[in-house]
């Protein structure tokens, strides 16, 4: 069949293209230009495309497949970078990779694949698609250290049905690199990409400062009682649970203090004892990959953490998660529901109602 492969120029998506090509599919490589690489690395005159697009093209050449570069800069700016800055300015801690998957990748590329007459969009994500009795299911990767299912919770069931994730069944990254070497791909030894793609150097704070200078205005660090105990250089520099950048306010006798709330309106960073968490989490923009409804399951508040036992309650857009044991949930991050390895759905964490 005809398959569009989203090729980043890295080893994972290159292997996906190579494997599908080897299996006899008509593979069409597509690489998204998401931002001006030259501007991102702060090098004037550097090519707007960067090394990764070059690498993707060379892999396509090697495989002898069609390859296209799509200009998605404006869309990426509108759907990912701008909301990323806005989220920080609102006192949240966003996950831009999820916004990118929701928009540029699994909305736009799925549509492009259909426009090009392709039956599937394949990506190098470490997740498994398993076809169950009610259609495509999303499962964690076999290699749990590489699993990216948390980042894909917002993929809709229709989008999932159009996707292939050939790497989800691999035991390790080493096994994928070995496939790259077997396929003769020069990217086999290329280092893994780091963190947020559009801030390859410098800090995310620079990006936020440029788009939302208001998120970088100084303000007070206060206790839960509202007592001022320090100053900060912008709420965008903080996330819930953070103990760094608090200065003397980060210590109360021998007790460490951490950020417990960020108030965008008053620009206050609220700190408290490091061991307090909350059992209740409110979610917005919930996406279900199973029939919606109350249930016992496990949830993950961060991609890398162990699943936590929880109960999901509420309905519609007022979904509430009750953790069995308190945890620290940062607004803007995701809470993803699992039944063993299967992703049931998830949503974005809302800020707890501000008290006082």
């Amino acid at each position: 069949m005809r398959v569009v492969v989203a090729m980043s120029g890295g080893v994972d998506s290159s292997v996906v293209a190579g494997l599908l090509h080897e299996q006899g599919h008509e593979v069409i490589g597509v690489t998204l230009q998401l931002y001006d690489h030259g501007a991102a690395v702060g090098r004037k005159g550097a090519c707007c495309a960067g090394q990764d697009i070059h690498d993707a093209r060379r892999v396509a050449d090697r495989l002898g497949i069609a390859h296209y570069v799509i200009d998605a800069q404006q869309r990426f700016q509108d759907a990912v970078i701008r909301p990323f800055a806005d989220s920080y300015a609102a006192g949240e801690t966003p996950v831009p990779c999820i916004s990118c998957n929701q928009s540029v990748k699994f909305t736009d590329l799925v549509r492009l694949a259909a426009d090009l007459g392709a039956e599937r969009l394949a990506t190098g994500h470490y997740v498994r698609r398993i076809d169950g009795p009610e259609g495509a299911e999303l499962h964690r990767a076999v290699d749990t250290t590489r699993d990216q299912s948390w980042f894909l919770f917002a993929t809709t069931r229709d989008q999932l049905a159009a996707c292939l994730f050939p790497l989800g069944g691999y035991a390790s990254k080493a096994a994928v690199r070995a496939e790259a070497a077997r396929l003769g791909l020069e990217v086999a030894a290329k280092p893994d990409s780091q963190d947020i793609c559009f801030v390859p150097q410098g800090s995310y704070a620079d990006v936020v400062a440029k788009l939302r200078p208001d998120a970088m205005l100084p303000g007070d660090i206060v206790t839960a009682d509202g007592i001022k105990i320090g100053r900060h250089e912008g709420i965008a520099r903080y996330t819930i649970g953070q103990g760094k950048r608090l200065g003397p306010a980060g210590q109360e006798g021998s007790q460490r203090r951490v950020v417990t709330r960020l108030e965008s309106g008053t620009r206050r960073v609220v700190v408290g004892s490091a061991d307090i968490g909350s059992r209740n989490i409110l979610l917005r923009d919930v996406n279900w990959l199973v029939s919606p409804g109350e249930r016992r399951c496990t949830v993950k508040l961060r991609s890398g953490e162990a699943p936590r036992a929880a109960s999901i309650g509420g309905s519609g857009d007022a979904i509430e998660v009750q953790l069995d044991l308190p945890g620290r949930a940062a607004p803007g991050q995701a809470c993803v529901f699992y039944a063993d390895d299967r992703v049931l759905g998830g949503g974005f964490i809302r800020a707890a109602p501000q008290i006082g």
Partner: protein
Amino acid sequence: MRVYLDANASEPLYPAARAAAVAALEGVGNPSSVHADGRAARRQLEDAREAVARRFAVTAAQVVFTSGGTEADALAIHALGRGRRVIVGATEHDAVRAAAPGAAILPVDGNGVADLDALAALLREGPALVCLMLANNETGTLQPVREAAAMVHAAGGCLHVDAAQAAGRMLIDFAALGADSMAISGHKLGGPQGVGALVLNLALAPVALIAGGGQERGWRGGTQALPAIAGLGAAMGERPADHSALRDRIERDAVAAGAVVIGVGAPRLCNTICLGLPGVASQTQVMALDLAGIAVSAGAACSSGKVARSHVLDAMGQGGLAGEAIRVSLPWNITGAEVDFFLHAYQSLARRLSRRAA
């Protein structure tokens, strides 16, 4: 089956051009050397120069070979723009725009034709080097170069014409055009890539971008790329093809399929058709046609390979279609069967994707 409809990106090589280039590759000798081998190389070089000169009704001494159209434009702007204001047409190619970064912009109308009233106003501010392309690469729109030349000269300035797209598709009398310099590109007229020429008014003293050993009468240093130059010379002997009947058929059928022909109200090159398909992204059209075996393009090709938004269509006030247009450019060897193949694919694409967009 592959159908190549991207002649404005690069024309197929004429067999005569190929034969001349291969013959030159088989020789030995530097055109600047004094011995018999050098003289043989020099003879091929000067034969090619005379062929270029004949084509544009100039003398051989007015022809400077360069590495291509981009270098010819850069050289002209470097030489003629010294100490002068520069004015460039809004739809000029990047070869011109990038060589004149601070230039004033001469606006165009909805068909891409330069606004001569605006030119008159710009010239009232003093003499200038004006850069105006003879034919646009994306729409094929022809510019009123003769009228512009008269105005520019009356104001004490000079005119450079980028004829990269026009030179292989129409006969040009350089003197009648009235320009002070004119850039051509080998591979846009059925010659090899990597060669071009600047045709100059004889009165100009040499100013080089690359001085080197003073080749090309001081205009361009470096040993001449003889095989490419010989190919260019041979291509100059080919008469431009008249594609107007095929062009009209493509436009009629494309419009019936829902397309808009951009620049339709102006005189245009007979091989260039700019088709907007409302609601369907240019890059999707280019990809879908490529997968169907047809090579077309959209906007100007960026070196990264991505489809960039067209500054030409933006300048024409066609902003809405700037991201939804493709360029179909017919090569010299196009056949009616190939046009049928394209129209079939285009109609099916328009049916499938316009409906999705609506």
